[in-house]
């Protein structure tokens, strides 16, 4: 028996990486604060610096590859194209270039940069959070904060069901192909393939729900007993708590400052 594997459950979970070992709620807090801050700073240089900051953090947390593999799509789509659209069509006065409805102005360029920096900064924060927070850790923290284990179940089960249904869809697609349903060809042919796959997929999934419900019942899912946990996370240390307080206060100050500026 591999006792090393089992011993991991006896201690709270630690990965060794300072950033990854932060409490999931801490990570959520920081994500929201850092991701939303550009909205209140309203300065595209700040926004773009945040983008670079997140990339650096992803490397420090050891997940640069997986982070960037999702982030580059946003960078391209929204970094480049959104900027072009905004620059071409946003209202402005100092015209630099004009053709038909396209009107690039000094203001529209700034407007483009602003919007893009906001979108990229928030997206970066969100994707980073997802990459450094395993779902089980997140649901564990929710339960520690008093959220019902039913919520944890729904969240975790959703992810697994996506994988399961994805596999089922492949199987159904293959079997429908064998029956002559076309998946290549013109759009009408491809469209006709959709319902014969999604229909059985949904019906099978719904039919299995009854048994799933009974099976989970058998595991005392609804038992009126307080739950214990096999795999636990360490409690947030003092350093972490101070970190949160500092960032939250800074964020609050930022909001107040922005409102004050707006009012005056």
């Amino acid at each position, binding site marked *: 028996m591999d006792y090393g594997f089992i011993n991991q459950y006896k201690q709270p979970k630690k990965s060794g990486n300072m950033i990854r070992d932060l409490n999931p709620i801490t990570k959520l807090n920081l994500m929201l604060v850092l991701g939303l801050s550009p909205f209140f700073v309203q300065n595209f240089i700040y926004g773009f610096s945040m983008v670079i900051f997140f990339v650096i953090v992803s490397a420090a947390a050891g997940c640069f590859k997986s982070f960037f593999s*999702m982030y580059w799509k946003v960078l391209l789509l929204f970094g480049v194209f*959104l900027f072009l659209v905004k620059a071409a069509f946003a209202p402005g006065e100092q015209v630099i270039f004009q053709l038909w409805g396209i009107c690039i102005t000094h203001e529209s360029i700034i407007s483009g940069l602003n919007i893009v920096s906001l979108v990229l900064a928030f997206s970066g924060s969100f994707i980073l959070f997802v990459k450094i927070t395993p779902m089980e850790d997140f649901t564990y923290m929710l339960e520690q904060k008093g959220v019902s284990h039913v919520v944890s179940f729904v969240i975790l*089960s*959703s992810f697994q069901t996506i994988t399961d249904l994805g596999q089922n869809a492949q199987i159904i697609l293959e079997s429908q192909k064998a029956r002559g349903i076309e998946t290549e060809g013109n759009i009408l042919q491809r469209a006709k393939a959709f319902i014969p796959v*999604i229909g059985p997929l949904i019906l099978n999934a719904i039919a299995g*729900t009854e048994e799933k*419900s009974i099976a989970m019942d058998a595991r005392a899912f609804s038992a009126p007993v307080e739950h214990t946990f096999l795999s636990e996370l360490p409690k947030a240390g003092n350093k972490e708590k101070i970190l949160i307080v500092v960032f939250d206060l800074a964020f609050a100050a930022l909001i107040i400052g922005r409102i004050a500026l707006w009012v005056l």
Partner: protein
Amino acid sequence: MKKFDKLTIFLIPIGIAVNVVGGQLAVLLKLPVFLDSIGTIVVGALCGGIPGLLVGLGCGLINAISLPTLLPYTVIGMLFGLIASFLAKKNMFSAFWKAIVNGLGIALISTCIAVPITATLYGGFVGTGASVIVTTLMAAGWDVLPATFVSELSSELMDKIICLVVVFLVLKAIPERLVVKLPNGKYFLKEK
């Protein structure tokens, strides 16, 4: 825990997964529609507004993981859940022509909410093929709002009508003995 709630809890993950896999299937078959609201509407119709809303929320968050810019549109998904339950209570899932009507209605509502979001946050740019329509219109001199509206509406109409037809077929095919155990079941049972 009430027996109705028990089944509903297990249908929510299925609703979310059906949304995601439906969307993936549409991409696989290279269809120019999203088809990622089927789960929300089925669950909303069978289990009620709140479960449907939760499916919309869950799916919205998961979509946001691949493309965080989709986050604001989550509210639309949530609204679909509520609408679906309302439609079920008004017996709007009992005939094929009603499915078309549902599709039209939902497409319209969805567009009316999505357009202001797209126009203000992203300047009309969604990141999908519809954006090509928007940019072309704007290049021809159209204003942001009307351009976004036209492109969103055309894409939504196609998408939602197909979605609602699929929903209609699925709801028709679910065995009665299962439907009877669900919160909105009574709206689907035929009079004996």
